[in-house]
């Protein structure tokens, strides 16, 4: 009897491991191994792995380095701007698309096109739009009689510019960072639209019919049926978008002016890791920042999932 139970348990374990092995093939060499390798690198000093074993000194240097804190601030600002805006915009468009009957497919493709286009290629086009001398956006401002801006080259805070100098220039995200965020919102909201449309289409028709019989108005349907039933979709999108925004690299790399031209206000953590690791050759320090970023993302995701337990409704 005992042998049979154990036999069954081993058999189940064997099947489970066999089923999981394909994902291990991807996870271990491409995610777990690099993570451990990065940790190993972070324990060494010098440039390009030429120094001595320094233990956890690189982690201490990260915490002491003002550039790390500056880039963490930029990363947080970026996430705070892009995640809510992308999701709210994506939901609004998806909601409107779900209510129309004609041209739905065309519009869905139209909104999805930026998402499937190469980030660097479209970023180059936006860079031309943002050009302070001959860019489209300054032409528009000029046409409307508004003061022209330096866009991607403007390190002063957006609130300082909007309030005409009342808010100190160091406060809040810089105009340059807002420009990169706007580009990212345009580039990714199509994904949110498609996922929200899919979520809306899974809501059973009976709920709508019952609500209509009870005389519910569209806003009541939205707030009492659609939004609560879409919470799993929101959770998925918030998680994905948050991780994506914290790890954003291409838009920053393509749009940030080189050198100190925006006073570090467009250097997020990924760009900081890249420049320290590849440009300046501090493999140990760069890896330590990467480990910090991983821990930061994991902690945020964990908090998010804990929070979601209370507020996410499943049908």
């Amino acid at each position: 009897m005992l042998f049979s139970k154990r036999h069954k348990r081993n058999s189940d374990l064997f099947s489970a491991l066999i089923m999981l092995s394909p994902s291990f093939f991807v996870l271990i060499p491409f995610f777990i191994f690099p993570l451990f390798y990065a940790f190993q690198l972070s324990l060494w000093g010098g440039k390009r792995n030429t120094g001595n074993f320094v233990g956890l000194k690189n982690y201490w240097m990260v915490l002491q380095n003002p550039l790390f804190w500056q880039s963490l601030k930029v990363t947080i600002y970026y996430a705070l701007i892009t995640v809510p805006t992308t999701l709210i915009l994506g939901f609004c468009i998806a909601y409107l698309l779900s209510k129309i009957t004609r041209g739905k497919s065309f519009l869905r493709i139209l909104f999805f096109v930026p998402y499937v286009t190469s980030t660097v290629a479209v970023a180059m086009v936006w860079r031309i739009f943002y050009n302070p001398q001959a860019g489209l956006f300054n032409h528009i401002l000029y046409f409307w009689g508004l003061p022209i801006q330096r866009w991607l080259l403007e390190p002063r805070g957006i609130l300082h510019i909007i309030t005409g100098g009342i808010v100190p220039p160091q406060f809040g995200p810089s105009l340059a960072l807002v420009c990169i965020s706007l580009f990212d919102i345009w580039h990714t909201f199509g994904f949110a639209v498609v996922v929200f449309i899919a979520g809306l289409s899974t809501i059973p028709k009976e709920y709508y019919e019952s609500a209509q019989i009870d005389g519910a108005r569209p806003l009541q349907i939205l707030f009492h049926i659609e939004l609560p039933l879409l919470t799993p979709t929101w959770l998925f999108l918030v998680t994905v978008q948050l991780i994506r925004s914290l790890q954003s690299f291409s838009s920053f790399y393509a749009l940030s002016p080189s050198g100190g031209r925006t006073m570090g206000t467009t250097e997020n953590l990924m760009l900081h890791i890249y420049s320290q690791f590849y440009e300046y050759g501090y493999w140990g320090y760069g890896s330590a920042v990467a480990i910090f970023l991983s821990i930061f993302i994991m902690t945020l995701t964990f908090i998010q999932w804990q929070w979601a337990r209370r507020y996410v409704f499943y049908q």
Partner: protein
Amino acid sequence: MLYKKRVNKILLVLFFPLTILLWGTGCVFSTPSEFVPLNSTHVIFWDRQTAESAEFIKEKTHEFNQLYPGIPVKVEKAGGYAEIFRKVSASIQAHKLPALAVSYESMTSEYIPTGAVVPLDEYVNDPEIGLSKEELEDFFPAVIMANRYPDFDNKLYSFPLAKSVLVLYYNQDVLKRAEITEPPKTWDDFYNHLRMIKTKMNQKGYAISIDCSTVSAMIYSFGGKIVEGRQTLFSADETVHVFSFLQRLIQEDLAYVITPGTFDDQIAFAKGEIAYMIRSSSLRIALELLEKEKPFQWGIAPLPYRDGFRPVTVLFGPNITIFKTTPEQQKRAWKFIRFMTSKENTVNWAIETGYVPIRKSSAENIKLQQFWQEKPYAKVPFDCLPFAKPEPNLSGWQQIRDMVESAELEVLTLMDTPENVCKRLEKKANAVLNLP
């Protein structure tokens, strides 16, 4: 027994392929121990020069290949300095290198710790292919000193190629209109001139180009130092003075900042919209071209200095670095450097490109003397060489350059006081220099 077999089976099925994969991935990360040349049939030289300078280097390379048979040197345009830095860094990681590349001192100091750079002392002192004592003393001391790296036993890891100094360009037409008779000697004169231009012509007299080398030169000219050992001195009074001076020019509407990365100041200068521009002496050629399009009177003066101090400027411009490839390629690369920096080529280089001749004996060259007679302003950068100082070449300086430009921008956009900016700059820069 059956249980053990099962477990072994599981381990075999699951971990064997993973072990193979990890082993494979490990191969990607392991690096070969020796550097090899990018091209075994040519000595590859990664250059950035454009227009006249590129043409000159191409022509001289052809001449070198004709005169000295051996593995041919091939010049490849590898983009701007930032791009060359990235490409060389990637090549170092791949252990496959060009024989030569142009590089600033701050770039070379990043390459040296990897062991990819060839120290040149051995070649310089070689009785057969090296330089004699007289020949070595013919170079201005500053241009050689700039290529010795205190962080790395003071060895010569690069050799000067296209050197220039920071100078003050002045538009004679604007000065005349403002009733200014001669360019400023001191920073006080400079400030007074800008005020005169503002009062008499109601225009800004100076366009500021945000640039680390300009800040370094200004710190020197205010009597300051930039580093001491591996600590920066950005919060010292002299640096605060420099930033305060620049901020004052903006606050009093005497100067403006050009869009970074552009040459808007040149255009404004040629149009007579500004009187002064502080730039590299190599810009001479560009101004001569603008002058041809629409004639205007202009000149070059040494960088102003602080009252009571001696004139000083910063020496900059790229050097050549030899990378570890093969002994034959390295030897050939050194011979090429020696050829490019010969007395004759130094003079021709100066005349045709706007860079300064790096040998003292150039002043005796008749061809150069004639050239200076025709264009007296072209002699000013050469006269600045005896008091030109190189910028720090510590490992990590490349990153600090960006920080200095950030700080300058912060001051010029009136975002904070020079004192606070300087304190933060010093903290950030020291953090970089103290990385393990």
